[in-house]
């Protein structure tokens, strides 16, 4: 609520009116220059590529292009929807992403609150940097770390099990543990960056609110519960909404690097992106790839739109649009 009011008060943020957009550019050239790369990127990859979506409904011929390829209706969707794996990979994608969103959010918000409570700046900085570090490690490197942990012969986990006289486990042949392993890896990798955002939101909370609460006798826990959490919720809601938009997209880099061609683990961890990649790596059909992409985008759009509507009704500060 407060944020919206503030926005309205900002100078040069007035919209509408004849020529006001051009005038605004002239008045704030540097600001517009700053967002120019993002605008160009979005225009090229977000809009100029849209016409290409028609190939999802065509038997695309490289020679005749999108204007002269034969129309085939929904035939390109068949390879995915008729396959025995469609339901599994769709469910896995949604299930794993929901778990990722939930655990990353819970860990990030908790960690941000804890870090905010710590007064030793050096400690906070070192902790934050340590958590942020995995964000910059590629999934390929992470896959080696995982292999070091879970390999059958020399894996650290099996060695620990051996220490307690427990039989070693063939992790790469046992599908069930991979859901928590992947969730753990995602939390390890993504928490640091989210903490930065949540911490920024928490630091921005008006200090006088805490002082007033203290005078009223609120302890640390009460302050967190009644001030920090409610005021950080709009940020949580917006970031969650953005994540929901991508709930149908598995993090391809992550899944491919860690799971790769391991068919035994597919029942629990195969996601749409890896399934489609494997399928089209073999057949190389752009129409089928587009059909699945369109399916993911449509579901993502519906989910964001619906969730946003629900959020808007019950918690308007958290709505994205």
């Amino acid at each position: 609520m407060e944020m919206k009011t503030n926005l309205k008060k900002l100078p040069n943020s007035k919209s509408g009116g004849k020529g006001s957009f051009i005038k605004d550019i002239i008045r704030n050239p540097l600001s517009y220059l700053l967002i120019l790369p993002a605008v160009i990127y979005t225009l090229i990859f977000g809009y100029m590529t849209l016409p290409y979506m028609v190939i999802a409904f065509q038997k695309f011929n490289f020679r005749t292009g999108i204007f002269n390829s034969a129309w085939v209706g929904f035939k390109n969707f068949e390879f995915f929807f008729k396959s025995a794996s469609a339901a599994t990979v769709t469910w896995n994608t949604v299930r794993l992403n929901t778990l990722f969103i939930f655990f990353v959010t819970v860990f990030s918000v908790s960690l941000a609150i804890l870090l905010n409570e710590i007064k030793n700046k050096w400690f906070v900085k070192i902790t934050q940097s340590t958590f942020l570090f995995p964000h910059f490690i590629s999934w390929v490197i992470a896959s080696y770390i995982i292999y070091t942990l879970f390999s059958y012969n020399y894996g650290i986990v099996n060695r620990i099990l051996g220490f307690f006289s427990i039989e070693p486990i063939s992790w790469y042949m046992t599908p069930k543990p991979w859901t928590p392993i992947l969730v753990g890896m995602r939390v390890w990798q993504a928490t640091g960056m989210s903490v930065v955002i949540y911490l920024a939101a928490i630091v921005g909370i008006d200090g006088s609110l805490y002082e007033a609460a203290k005078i009223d006798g609120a302890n640390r826990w009460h302050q967190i519960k009644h001030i920090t959490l409610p005021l950080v919720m709009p940020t949580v809601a917006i970031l969650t909404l953005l994540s929901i938009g991508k709930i149908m997209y598995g993090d391809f880099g992550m899944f491919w690097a860690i799971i790769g061609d391991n068919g035994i683990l597919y029942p629990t961890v195969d996601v749409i992106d890896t399934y489609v990649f494997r399928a089209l790596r073999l057949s190389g059909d752009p129409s089928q790839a587009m059909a699945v992409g369109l399916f993911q985008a449509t579901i993502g759009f519906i989910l964001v739109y619906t969730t946003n509507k629900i959020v808007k009704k019950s918690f308007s500060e958290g709505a994205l649009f």
Partner: protein
Amino acid sequence: MNKRIGYFVLILLFISGMLAFAGGEKEAGKEGPVKVRFVFPGNPEQEADIVQAEINRRLIEDGQNLELELVYIPWDVWDQKTNLMLTTGEEFELMHVMEDRHGFADYAGKGAIVSIDEYIDEYGPALKKVIPDWVWDTARIDGKITMIPAYRLSATGDRQGWTIRKDLLEENNLSIPTTPAELLDAAEIIKKNWKGDGEIYIPIRSNTDAFFFLHRSYDSFPFTVFQKLVRIDQDGKVSSWVETEEFKKDSEFFRDAFNRGLIHRDILGQPNDWAINQLMSASFAFQPGCPLNLWPKMKDNNPGMEIDDIVTVSFNPEKPTFSITAVGNDNVVPSTTSHPEAGVKYLNWVYSSQENYDLHFYGIEGRHWKKAPNHRRISILDPDRGQSNYRFREWMAGNVEYLRYEESAHPRFVELFSETPADTEYSITIGFNFNAVPVQAEYTSCLTEYNSSMVPIVLGLIDYEENFPTALKRLKAAGLDKVVAEYDKQFNTWMATK
């Protein structure tokens, strides 16, 4: 007003996007030499630019009016990048095709490549000379030549054999196994008595065609397996491969190997370089196929090893050598180029003399390699990197006529890859190219499903009896019967015209 401008800009972008994907404008009327952009997988060689400049200098000297550009596409993005280049109408003149990944017939079916008969006739005399007619016959789609075969290997290839360390057999008082059961017994003993570092296994990869070497031991040999989905007998009978008794035998062999600890339990999750490292250090119980191309590395890592200490043999050597494919690799002319003749002209130039071939494949003589006796070569290694600064992989476009093996190459490797035994029997399918487009959805689903459900079975990681029924059900649901029926139909039509 502003909204109108906004809409106008968006519509403009939309149209420009459509034009971009509609094939784009072709380069035309440009003066100077015609570009030959040769697109192939791999990372750029250290001194590719220097060799490219030398090739271009020689092309001008020879009056070819061509300018070569070597376009390296990293392995991990090869399929995506080339598909995108073809889809968006990007111009390039030559593209490499790996038949075991994504065959030329598939590209042709989607209109991604053009037929090149007229260019071969006009600009390809050297190509015609060094590639035999029967190999050209395999390059045809609907009677038209659609690819330039890399006729590097002999017809035998290496897939029917297996490789074992003879020194380890001798150390354990074992003779060379003659049956699959003997092989597993020997491998188990070698593993048990292994004195080197770590454990040893059969270092196969999850995407391997490891089982081919077993087929010579079956009474039904020879037969052909297409994409691990279709079996074709020499009498022309087409059937579903996974439902055969031989597939079951393959699976049971590897299951037995797994139970004896010869298949690594992490085989599906291991980093990609594991298998190659095992082979390079010659730390294996045995290996399907012929990894003797790695002999120089094996020798480096085991200085005490001699050439005779490692052998590639096959079961039932009295049976004829069976050739399944004419070539495994080829190069094609994309339909996006406005100079379809340029790629043909360039490869013809490469194959027109030993000097041109040497320059293209091995780099500059004296800088990247030097001649050795018996038509061999010695790579000149960069002292800092320990490897040569230029090499064009011969499996992509090499030719048996000109090929120079490294001086240190294993003689058995050279023999297997350059000599065709007189009694060679050829697969009935040679020359037939399956067009998957009519069953594209089912074909794609089947290939994917095979990797998910069947690979763990055939690698012995899970039990055949227990898991096969479910896996087959999934493969059938993906459309296996339809794919086999389509193959049968196309194959019979082709046979009728033969």
